[in-house]
Structures are given as C-alpha cells and as structure tokens.
C-alpha cells in the first residue's frame, strides 16, 4: 500500500490555460458585449411594461 498515490491539497500540476475567447477577440470586449445585451434586455422589458401597464 506504500506506493499508493498520495493526496495533495493542491491540485496536481497542470498548465493553466488562459486562452482568448472564441469570438470578439478579447475578454474585455466579450464582457462589454454581455453588459450591452443586459442593458438592451432591461430596456426592452421596461418598454414592454410601459406598453402594457394599466393606466395609473
């Protein structure tokens, strides 16, 4: 049993890849894209609310 692999609290050595995103070239651009989509979704949801809201 002595040659059993021992557990290490640190994950076994492996190259940590930090590759570019598959679209838009850089990660900051992808982040901006996600936030613009969020702003657009909120704006559309607000328009939807306004359009169908009962009169105050």
């Amino acid at each position, binding site marked *: 049993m002595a040659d059993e692999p021992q557990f290490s609290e640190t*994950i076994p050595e492996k190259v*940590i890849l*930090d*590759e570019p995103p598959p679209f838009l070239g850089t990660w900051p651009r992808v982040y901006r894209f*996600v936030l613009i989509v969020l702003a657009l979704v*909120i704006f559309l949801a607000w328009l939807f*609310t306004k359009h169908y809201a009962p009169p105050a």
Partner: protein
Amino acid sequence: MTTLDWIVLFGWLAFLVSYGLWRGRGSNSVNQFLLAGKTMPWYAMGLSIMATQASAITFISTTGQAYVDGMRFVQFYFGLPVAMVLLSATAVPIFHRAKVYTAYEYLEQRFDSKTRSLVTIIFLIGRGLGAGIALAAPSIVMSVVLGWPYYMTTIIMGGLIILYTTMGGIKAVTYADVQQMMMIMGALILALVIAIWKLPHDVSFLDAVKIAGAAGRLNAVDTHFNLNDRYNLWSGLIGSTFLMLAYFGTDQSQVQRYLTGKSIGQSRLGLLLNAMAKVPIQFFILFIGAMVFVFFVFERPPLLFQPVELKRLEQTAQFRALEGRYRQALDQRETAARKVKDGGPGDDFRAAQQRVNAVRDEAGKLSQDSDTNYIFLSFVTRYLPRGLVGLILGVIFTAAMSASSGEINSLATVTMIDVYQRHFHRQGSDRHFLLASRVATVFWGIYAVAFANFAQGFGALIEAVNQVGSLFYGSMLGVFVVAFFMKRAGGTAAFWGVLAGQATTFAVARFTPIAYLWYNLIGCVVVLVVAWTITTVSRRSSLVA
C-alpha cells in the same frame, strides 16, 4: 395521474439517474470526484450552474408568483450578468491559478487558517440549512400533488440524490444537470403553448397579453427606488449584483462548478452563458405564469389551488359562502376581460379582479398552506395532456434533486477538504480521501432528508430560511473582495472584518425592515471598512514603533 403519466415520471427519473451514473463513471480519484479532473466543457458548466440555481420551488413558485403578483420578480436577476462579468474577470482566474478544490482553501493561501476556518463554518451553517430546505420545500408540494406521504417523497428524492452523487461525484451531478436543464426548457415551452392553445377561440395570443397587462401582470420593470421593496430595478441592479457576486463567487456549490472547467476560458464561457440566458429564461417562466392567469380568466379556477386544503374547507359553510361570491366575481371578471379584448377600458376588469383577489385572500386565511405554489401544478395536472403531466411532474421532481445534489456535493467537498483533511488527517492516500469524500456525501444526503422531515411542520421557518443565504453571503463576499483587492490586508483584518460584517447583517435583519437583497451589500461593505481600518491602524502602529 394516469398510468401513462406514472410510467413517464418514473421513466424520466430512472433515465436521469442512470445517465448521471454513466457519465460519472471513472470518478476514482479525489480530483475526478470533486472537480471532474478539470475536464468540463463550458456548456456543461453553464447549464449545470443554471440547473442548480433553478430549484424546483423556484420553478413552481415563480409561475405562481406571476399569477398573483405579476412579473416584477424578474428584476431579482438583473444583477446576475453584472456579477458574472466581474467574477469572470477576477475570481475565475484567481481560483484556477491557486489550484484549489474549494474557495475557502484559497483564503488560507491568502490569509491564514483562522480566516479559512471561520468562513468554512459560515458556509457549512448557511448551505447546510439551505440543503435541507431545497429538499423540504418541493417535497411538501409534490407529496400533496402526487398523494404520497411526505416522508416517502423526501426519502425517494434523497435516496436517488445520494446514489448518483456518491457514485459519480461532480461529473454525475453536472451531466445530470445538463439533461435536466434542457428538459425543463422543453417542458416549459410546451406548457406555454398549451396555455395559449387552450384559450377560447375568440381570444388570440395578443388579446391574452393585453388582458394580462390590464391586470397588472406584465409589470416586469419598476423604476421607483424603495429600500423596503423587494423587487425593483435598483434592488435588482445593486442589491442583486452583490447577492449574485456572493453566491457565484464564494458559495462552494457554484465555485466548484467552474473549477471543473478545463481552462480559465472554458470556466468564463460557462458563467457568461448563464449571464446571457438567465434573465430571458426567468422572463419566460414569469410570462408563463401571466398566461396561466389569463387562461384562468376564461376557465373557472378553484377558490384554492391546494387540493387537500380545498377538499377540507369545502365541508365548511363559511367556505361555501365564499365560493358563491367567488363565482359571481369570476363571471364579472370574464365579462370585463372580453371588453378589454375588444379594446374597451380596463377599469371594470381591474375592479372585478380586486373582488376576485379579496375573496381569495379571505379563503387563503382559512387555509393552512400557501396557495401560490400550487397554481402552476393545478394547471398542469388538470389541463395538460396525458403523458405530459407525468413528464412535467418528473422534471419538477428532478429539479429539486438537481439543486440538492449540487449543494450536498459542495458540502461534502468542504467537509472533506476544509475540515477533515485540514484539521484531522493531513496525510493520506488518494483512495483514503476519495472514500472520505463519499462518506461525507452520504452524511450530508442523510442530513438533508432528516432536516427536510424535521422542517416540514415549520412553514414559517421554511420561508425564513429561504432567505438565509443573504444573511451570510455579504460577509463572505466581503472577505473575498479584501483578499482580491486589499493587498496589504492580513488575516487578522479579514477575520475581524467577517465577524463584524456578520454581526451587522444579523442586526439589520433583526431590527430593520430593509429588504433582504440589501443585506449582501451591507455585510460586504462592513467587512471592507473594518478590514481597511484594522490594516491602516496596524500599519501606522508598526511605522510608529
């Protein structure tokens, strides 16, 4: 429930558990069992994150909430994409490079063991309560709908969770979640199509939307700022961002998901998939609730949707008198809705709706159970075709299992890595710690079933504990923000910061009416202020000395 529904329900359960076990085969090392050997693709991580967050009770309650209160709950998720972006840019690369199994392990690398231990304890308390509730809340609803004894529902759910989580580890949990998430979306789309299809022939989809709007059920965005109001644009964008940052950035049930990624980029894409999809999905689920509301404008709904309570109260004269008033109010509402459809003003419709609400409120006071959770299920069981009823109930069943399995898996990971290995058994073989991980999984699974059975009689407790995350997340988020951005802060500053943040959050929850979403911001800010003050004072003292 017909025979076909039972076959579909059990078929789906058997398929999901078998599939999880099959995909989780080969989890024969700690790294494989807890982190899937860091091989997970982005789409599996993203869907699994969404499935874990979408517990059954969210699924059942959300549609019911839209029926009763409209779509404003969607604002709760507005902070999620912001949090996903911030975490992709900060926490994901930091945790990956630290090569840790748990988020709390990183705290010892950055600070010291007492800070790691304190945050570990906070996580185990908060998530431990959550794991029991994640099983209890849907079990109560499902046992009523299926007519099963409550204990049997929790044991079946808990037993299946323990089986595939113990055998297949995180890989089984993740891949079962992927199937689960796709089936949830398919079932919801079918439910919406049927709700619209079953409307009277002279009521079109656009008419239905107009009627839902006239009843105030399409109130997705509220721009008024009010600290005591749970859901508005500002609590969504600010309070919810902090909650989501804490949940996805410090809660091991989520951190563990993106630590399974084969690279930093894959983990980021998993989170960003969640960022892009979550708000539209929640909007869609709430919209189904609004359409179910319109469906019941034209199809007479029961006074109470909870079948057991309805049957009990129908025997009383007081309830029968209410039913008479209810029928009258429903008739008036239907007539007024047809006027709205034809372009008339909505005043009569809203007045009739208020009369309906008033009678339902009176009936609700006689009932011993919350009715909101049974609205969607009542629609499913009474109006959906054979087979589909079984499928949707099966999906709800496994949604509860999905949320619980993720929580049990993360509790087991933290127990093994941050408690057992850190404090009781520093050295040992991989096989020994793999066995310890499995034992911890079984322990937390049995605990969740036991807690769910104990908590059954405490309805109010369940409501309270549903918000328990926000009591703990603020200070947990604070300590990670200190770790990432306050380079000079040490373990003592972080430790006292967490204690101060926790004490403040409890005080705010106990003594103020501030809505729970804001606890996360308050707890986080207190940790930062206290840690910064201690760091500054101790630096000045050491400079003077």
